[in-house]
């Protein structure tokens, strides 16, 4: 990886998030997060339940807006964008892998992988199909292209979801407990797959996980406690910043 200094693919500055603003039950769940993710980084986002992991992931994923602070993704300042601009930026720059695959049951595996491209370009075309098939081949599911999600095992579904997350070749993929629902063997497979894509395509990955085993296999560990970012301390974790490969 190029180690020359350059703009991070994702940068958060002083991000705060409060819920129920202006009501007696107002609660701040993120207290000023500064975070930079470099292109091609493979980071684990860890922390106990209620630490604000999901909220942070949603803010990074442009699914929620911060109450204060700035979010820059791929050189674009997202906080100034309107709803439509945000949706479009999300479609182009971010891929999502959820704990429960969240494939659309009405569509085949191939169509699910095509979906982000279809949303972006409006109409299906041959290139889209070829691209989606390539991705399915990469996740080893070319044979299952015509099957509906219900006909696939949990691990297979998650692999289709990964192929879908990558279909727009986004610079960042966010994975929320991508293996949380799988047995350890399958979880390892999925993790290896993410790792491989990270290496092969230079895609930055932010993986939320409860599994210390998997977190240990990431290049960087971002720990969140009670809405604060914990500076990484002792080894085996590398210091804040891009992983040394």
């Amino acid at each position, binding site marked *: 990886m190029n180690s020359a200094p350059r703009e991070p693919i994702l940068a958060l500055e002083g991000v705060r998030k409060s819920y129920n603003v202006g009501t007696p039950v107002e609660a701040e769940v993120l207290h000023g997060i500064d975070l930079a993710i470099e292109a091609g980084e493979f980071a684990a986002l860890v922390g106990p339940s209620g630490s604000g992991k999901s909220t942070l992931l*949603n803010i990074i*994923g442009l*699914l*929620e807006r911060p109450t204060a602070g700035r979010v820059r993704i791929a050189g674009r300042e997202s906080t100034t964008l309107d*709803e*439509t601009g945000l*949706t*479009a930026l*999300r*479609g*182009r720059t971010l891929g*999502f892998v*959820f704990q*429960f695959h*969240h494939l*659309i*049951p*009405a*569509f085949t595996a191939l169509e699910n992988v095509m*979906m*982000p491209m*279809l*949303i*972006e370009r*409006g*109409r*299906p075309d041959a290139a889209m199909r070829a691209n989606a098939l390539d991705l399915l081949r990469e996740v080893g599911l070319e044979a299952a292209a015509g099957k509906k999600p219900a006909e696939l095992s949990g691990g297979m579904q998650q692999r289709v979801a990964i192929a*879908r997350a990558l279909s*727009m070749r986004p610079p960042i993929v966010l994975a929320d407990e991508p293996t949380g629902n799988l047995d350890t063997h399958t979880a390892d497979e999925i993790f290896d797959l993410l790792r491989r894509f990270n290496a092969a395509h230079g895609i930055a990955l932010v993986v939320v996980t409860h599994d210390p085993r998997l977190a240990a296999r990431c290049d960087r560990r971002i720990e969140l406690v009670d809405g604060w970012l914990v500076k990484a301390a002792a080894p085996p974790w590398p210091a804040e910043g891009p992983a040394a490969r």
Partner: protein
Amino acid sequence: MPFELIVALRFLREGRMQTALILGGVAIGVAVVVFITGLVQGLQASLVERTLGSQAHIVIRPPEEKTQPVVDRNISDVAARIEARPQRLRSIDQWESLLPAVVRTPGVVAASPMATGAAFAQRGTASKSVAVRGVDPERYRRIVRINEDMVAGEFRLSGTDGVIGVELAKDLGVAVGDRIRIGTPEGREEVITVAGIFDLGNKDLNQRWVFVTLKLAQTLLDLPGGVSTIELTVREIFSADAVAARIERETGLLAESWMTTNAQLLAAMRNQNISTGTIRLFVTLVVALGIASVLVVWVVQKQKEIGILRAMGASRLRIMTVFLLQGGMVALGGSMVGSLIAAGLVRIFARVFVNADGTPMFVPEVGAALVFTTWAVALFTGLLAAALPARRAAQLDPVAAIRLG
């Protein structure tokens, strides 16, 4: 195929049972609307057709004779009573020069002058009161299609040939070729030969009408060269009132349209239209509510998918379009099926409700215009019904929607 249509179709296909049910609901609604509308239109067309089968659209008469008071009405110490004058049989003044002008009136298709008055028809000791109608057969045929109503002989008028109705023929015991004597209060008499017998489907007219040549009627009624009425056909039957009013204005004569003569029929038709309109309105409402409720359920069921699509970059507008399309497609698809059902009902109706002779009593009119109008209304209703659920879908928060899964 664009993204929105692909997703809408797939969602419809996936919810097979719901799609089938709501399609069925829309189809039945549309079938009811199309069939009832067609039925009423057919019934009304048939009623008008029957009414106008023996009637001119407009009849022009000379103005009524009025008594002119000679004493100023405002003088209160005169106890005056104005007696209405008896209306004698008169000719329309200058009818021959008037006729071309009347024919040129916009909307008028044909005109037939007629000399008509009271008479007695006698044969042997039988004597019946009749109405002598002196017409020019060529012109009269363009007012009333009497050729279609002939049951014996033909509608041929020349010299002393005449045409009478079936009831009169029965009363007098005559057949084609027999002679009857026509006498008028004016004191004139003529023996005419029955050249044809008609059945207008109206007992009174079949009993009373005796057609002779215009010339013979003029002689019998003591109206040399005169005509008592001019009968008109207009292009658009429901414009008869307006055309009649214009003729009255321009000629100073009395012009009475069939709409005035049959005011009760028209009032009945209007009331019928109001009741069918009400039925249509409520059926449309029920269909709209049906579509809306199914779509609301769909939106709730598809929350997760909507959230995923939104996360993958689908804008609110596109999500809304997906559900609007679903509403539109359900409405349009149901309409097509409904139209087929209505067409089937029409066939059954035509077979079940028949006249004594086996011909359909009347055929409900289900034309292309009715069908396409219904489709358009259904489509609009579908889109409108889908608007609220679609808005709801568009406004779903993707985070919440995904978490619900």
